[in-house]
Every structure is written in structure tokens, then in C-alpha cells.
């Protein structure tokens, strides 16, 4: 019997959230499940990934179908969910498909929001949990370490996870496209709404400071200034402050624009031509549209930001396609390596067997030659060694070659059969 690498489970692609949430388990419950499955011995290797978007079982087993059923039956017991109600939502991949799936998940190409960064950490946690339960063997170990490498490569070599896909973060990204680093860039908040607060926080995380807050109700401005470590300024002085800052976030409930072209023109004249970035989060708009026409001024309203987010999404998708191509190469390389690993135990046990025969026969021969000189012994030793090496050479080469062509399994069986090796040596996991 040979073993198969498999992955089975459900994700946002195959199951609605009502089903997924029934299986999502916290860490200690998950640990119990993994331990219970290990005790049942359904799989040689096992790892369970459980996030809000997916519940997946990675493993190596002789009968992947049975292992899958056992794993999901066990996962269901905690919430009393019957296997039959889960089964229709399960996907199952083996071998090459499973490798591809593992790589795509770790690289966040299978995520609901492509390129979101959390998934890699979640996969690492799942792997660590499996390691602590001692259910990781050579195959999962190789698979996961390669998946982490691939994920890292996708992250650094493509823009898949880099472009903002929310309105607030896209504003920060635009600020970076204008100012480069946001270190020490002064921000003025006009209005004290929640969106404004979020955008200000994001900018400050990037190093923007100081922060000024102008609000029609001064008390609210002071309150927000306290939580964000900013300074409240009188609403009437907005224009003067604008001459000093680099980024203005407007988010008031005013029915008509509070930031007018005349104010901005005056501010721009006073600040020479350093660029000014106006983020208008108000609906109806807080900034007069004509402001964008002023030199060195970039004014974005919510619709503009949505448009940028949309463009970013498309760009992410294009980058994802590039990442998929990259990933294909990695899958092929990994499978080749895995197949080579597959034949190694057979070569090793063949070597051991021949060595045992050699030792035994050599000892017998030497026992019959009590008066043999050291020289004779050395010659016999070398002779036997040479014969063993020559016999070993052809099958070893054949096994390595066949693994490269994908016939490794067949040939490990043939070689094991011919040389009478232990049956399990053809398998890669025990």
C-alpha cells in the first residue's frame, strides 16, 4: 500500500458561512481533534487549518477518503453536526492538486480578499499546532516549509498584497504616492466623525504628525484631540492651519462644502508649492470640486477613493494571475523533489541489505582463513565492497531516474520485490 498526500475541507468557495461557522474551532478544541485523529491512526500525517473562511485538513494517508470522513466526523462532534450535512460542501484534492491548493492558500491567492496578509500566519499556527501534536511527518513538513517560502516570494515579488482595498487605506496609499514617506507630515482633521478618526489613525501609524482637529463643536474636537494625541484648533482658523499642513481630511455632516476654493487658494499661496492632499470623506461633499484644479492640490472625495479602490482590486487581480504562474513553477519543482524523496528509503534499505549480506559472507570467509594476513583481509574487504557497489549502482540510478519521470512508485515496488526488501520501504512516510 502506498500513501497519498491530500487536502480536504471547505472554504468560502464551497460552503456558506452557516456551515463553516459550525466547524470553526478555537485552538484547544482543535488540538483535541488532532490528537483524537492521531490516536485513531487514520492518517500518517495530519494538520488542520481552521479560520473563519476555511476549515481544511491536510494529511498523508493510505486511504484519503476515509481519513477525510474521520476528520470531519471528529470536527463535527463538538457542535453535534452530522457528517452527512457537511459532506456536500467538502472539496478534496490529492497529490499535485493538494500541493497547488496548499501553496495558493498560504500565498493568499485563494482568500476572499486576495492578498490579505492574515492567512499566512493562520497556516503557520495550524502547522505549529500539528507539530506540537506530533502529527507532522516528512511530507507535511516539506510541503509547509515550501508553502511558506512560496507565500513569501509572492508577497515580495508581486503587488498582490500591497494595494489598498478599503477607502481609508487607499487614502493613505495615495498620500504615500504624493509625499513618499509620511514621516512628519502634518494632518488637519475637519470634523470629528468616525471615518475621519480612522483615516487619521492610519496616517499616524505611517508616521504622520502633528495632528490638528477643527470641529464646529469645540468640545468634540478637544475630546478627539485627547484620544489621538492631536491639538484642537478653532473652526474659524481652519484656513490658516491649512497653510501649515500637508494632508487635510474633511468629514463633517455639513450640507454644503466647508472647504472652499478661495480658502485653499489662499492656503496654497501661503505654503508656496508644497503639495496639499485633501481627503473629502463627507457626503454630501465637504470640499468644493474645483479645488482639485489648483496647482499642487490633490482633492479626492469618497467616489474618487472608491474608484482608486476599484482600480487597485483590478491591479491585484492582474498581479494574482502573475503570482499563479509563479506558483505553478513551484508546484512542479516541489513534486519533483517529493518524488525523489519517495525513492530514497528504498535505495537506503537496498544498500543496508546488500551491506548486511556482504558483512555476513565476508565474516564467514575470514573464519575459514584463520591465518590470513592483514593484506589478504584488506583485499577481501575491498573486493566485497566493490561487488556491492557495482550491484547497487544500476538499481539506484534507475530509481532516481524513474522518480524524475514520475514512475518512482512503480519502480520502488519492483526493486523491493526483486531484492526482497521490507514492504513498507517503498512508502515515504514510515
Amino acid at each position, binding site marked *: 500500500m502506498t500513501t497519498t498526500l491530500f487536502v480536504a475541507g471547505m472554504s468560502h468557495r464551497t460552503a456558506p458561512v452557516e456551515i463553516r461557522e459550525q466547524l470553526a474551532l478555537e485552538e484547544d478544541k482543535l488540538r483535541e481533534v488532532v490528537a483524537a485523529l492521531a490516536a485513531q491512526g487514520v492518517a500518517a500525517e495530519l494538520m488542520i487549518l481552521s479560520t473563519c473562511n476555511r476549515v481544511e485538513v491536510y494529511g498523508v494517508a493510505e486511504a484519503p477518503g476515509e481519513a477525510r470522513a474521520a476528520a470531519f466526523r471528529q470536527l463535527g462532534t463538538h457542535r453535534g453536526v452530522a457528517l452527512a450535512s457537511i459532506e456536500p460542501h467538502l472539496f478534496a484534492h490529492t497529490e499535485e492538486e493538494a500541493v497547488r491548493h496548499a501553496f495558493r492558500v498560504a500565498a493568499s491567492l485563494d482568500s476572499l480578499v486576495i492578498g490579505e496578509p492574515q492567512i499566512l500566519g493562520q497556516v503557520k499556527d495550524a502547522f505549529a499546532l500539528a507539530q506540537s501534536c506530533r502529527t507532522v511527518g516528512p511530507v507535511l513538513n516539506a510541503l509547509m516549509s515550501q508553502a511558506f517560502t512560496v507565500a513569501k516570494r509572492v508577497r515580495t515579488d508581486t503587488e498582490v498584497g500591497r494595494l489598498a482595498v478599503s477607502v481609508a487605506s487607499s487614502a493613505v496609499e495615495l498620500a504615500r504616492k504624493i*509625499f513618499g514617506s509620511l514621516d512628519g507630515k502634518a494632518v488637519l482633521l475637519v470634523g470629528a466623525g468616525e471615518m475621519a478618526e480612522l483615516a487619521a489613525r492610519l496616517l499616524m501609524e505611517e508616521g504622520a504628525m502633528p495632528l490638528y482637529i477643527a470641529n464646529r463643536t469645540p468640545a468634540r474636537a478637544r475630546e478627539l484631540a485627547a484620544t489621538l494625541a492631536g491639538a484642537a484648533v478653532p473652526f474659524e482658523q481652519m484656513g490658516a492651519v491649512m497653510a501649515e499642513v500637508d494632508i487635510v481630511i474633511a468629514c463633517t455632516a455639513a450640507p454644503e462644502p466647508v472647504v472652499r476654493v478661495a480658502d485653499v487658494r489662499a492656503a496654497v499661496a501661503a505654503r*508656496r*508649492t508644497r503639495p496639499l492632499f485633501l481627503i473629502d470623506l463627507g457626503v454630501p461633499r465637504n470640499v468644493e470640486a474645483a479645488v482639485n484644479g489648483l496647482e499642487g492640490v490633490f482633492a479626492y472625495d469618497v467616489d474618487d477613493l472608491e474608484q482608486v479602490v476599484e482600480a487597485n482590486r483590478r491591479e491585484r487581480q492582474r498581479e494574482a494571475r*502573475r503570482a499563479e504562474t509563479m506558483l505553478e513553477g513551484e508546484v512542479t519543482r516541489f513534486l519533483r523533489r517529493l518524488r525523489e524523496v519517495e525513492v530514497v528509503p528504498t535505495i537506503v534499505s537496498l544498500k543496508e541489505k546488500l551491506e548486511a549480506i556482504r558483512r555476513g559472507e565476508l565474516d564467514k570467509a575470514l573464519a575459514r582463513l584463520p591465518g590470513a594476513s592483514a593484506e589478504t583481509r584488506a583485499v577481501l574487504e575491498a573486493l566485497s565492497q566493490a561487488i556491492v557497489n557495482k550491484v547497487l549502482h544500476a538499481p539506484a540510478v534507475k530509481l532516481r531516474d524513474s522518480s524524475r519521470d514520475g514512475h518512482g512508485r512503480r519502480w520502488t515496488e519492483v526493486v523491493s520485490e526483486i531484492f526482497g526488501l521490507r514492504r513498507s520501504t517503498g512508502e515515504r512516510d514510515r
Partner: protein
Amino acid sequence: MINAVLYDIALTAYIVAMVAALGHLLGRREGLWRLALLCTQAGWLFHTLAIGLRGAELGRLPLLTLSELVSVMIWGAVLLELWAERVFRVKVLGAFVLPVIVGLGLALPTGLRALALEPAIRSAWIWVHAALALIGLAALVLNFAGAVMYLLQERQLKAKRPGPVYYRLPSLETLDRLSYRTLTLGFPFLTAGLVLGALWAGAAWGSVLTWDPLALFSVVMWMVYASILAGRVVGRWHGRRAAYLAVAGFCALLLTLGAGILLQGRHGS
């Protein structure tokens, strides 16, 4: 002549690098960027050899004919491009500099006309004059590329419709800094080169500004760049205005070269 062959190889490498760099700008392949970088470096090495051999063959610095001058100028510009790409981390710089390099390289007059210099006025100063002016011009090629990139990126940000180039181009601030840095690098050399040339002309011909098209256009070009720098220092002309002026300055630079090639004057031809 081996140096002409080497020069052709260099120019071919620059052309390949240009195509690859443009491909990297518009497509999304890191491999193309690496190819562009490799070809630029290889081209520069061949170019160096070509210039060195030409100097050895002539027994003087290859800074006398206009084709020699343009060749050395683009050699310097390629070197600066490789430097700036690293320092400013602008991977797409090549896509904007290399077309200029290739354009100048292809337009380079093939004849190797020597300048009709009266032996009496030959002095060491002519080499210093030419070398300084060339370093300045090489830096101004980069200044031009930086300005074009700035204008492109500024337009995208104003229009609020990010296209593929938007994602590749760095921040406005970086591009502004690149333009300013190359201007402050190039301008002093250009100034020193022109002043030396004027002094030398004064000593040789008794007049600082005799009727010489190259010299006259140089002065116009110098004034454009001087005004950008002055505008910067005073603080009025950052960003887009500086970029537009940098483009104008570069047009003056091209006119200067064109005048040197096409019109009769004391710089030869």
C-alpha cells in the same frame, strides 16, 4: 575599426535594454527589468571600451568632435542612470532615460569631423571645458527623465484614474527629489564648463561671445536651467512648474546640440 564595432554593440545593448525597460513599465515582469539592467550594464562596459580605444587610437581624449562629445555624454548619462536607479529606488527610471540615450545615440553624427581649431588656441583648457560641460549635460538627461516621470504621475493623481504606469512610478516627492538632485549635480558642472569655454574664447578670439551657434544656444539653455534652480531656491517652482521648465531646458539642450551639428561656427563643422 574595432571601437566602432564596440560602439555598435553598446548601442544595440542599450536598444535591447530600452525595449525591456519599456516592457517592464507597461507589463509586469520582473525578469524584463533584470534583463534591462543587465543589458544597460553590458552596454556601458562596451561603450567604455569603445571610448577608451578611440582615445588610444587618436592619442588624445575623445572630446573633440561632436559625435565624440555626444558619445561621452550618453556614456555619462548611462552611468548616472545606473547610480540613480539604485539610490532613488526607481526601477522604471531606465524606461525613461534609455529612450533619450538611444535617441541621442542613433542621431549621433557618424562622420568623425575634427573641430577646425587653430593650433594657437589649443590648450589644456579645452579638455576641461568639454569634460565639465559633458558631466553637466549627462546629469541633465536624468533631470529630463525625472521631469517627464513627474508630469506623468502628477497627471494620473490629478485625474484620479490610476493606470498601469501609476503603480510602477514612485511618489511625486521621490521624482521631485530626483529632478532636483540631478539639477544641482549637473548645473555647477555645466556652469563651470561654460565659463571656462567663455574665458578660453575670450583669450583666443578676444571676445567672450563671438558668433558661434553652439555657444549662443548653450547660454540660452544655461539660463533656462538657472531659472529653474533660482525658482527652486526661492521656493516658488517646485513640482509641476519645475518639471515643465526642465522639459523646456532639455529642449534647449537638444537645440544646442542640433545647432552645433548643423550650423557653421567656431566649434567646428
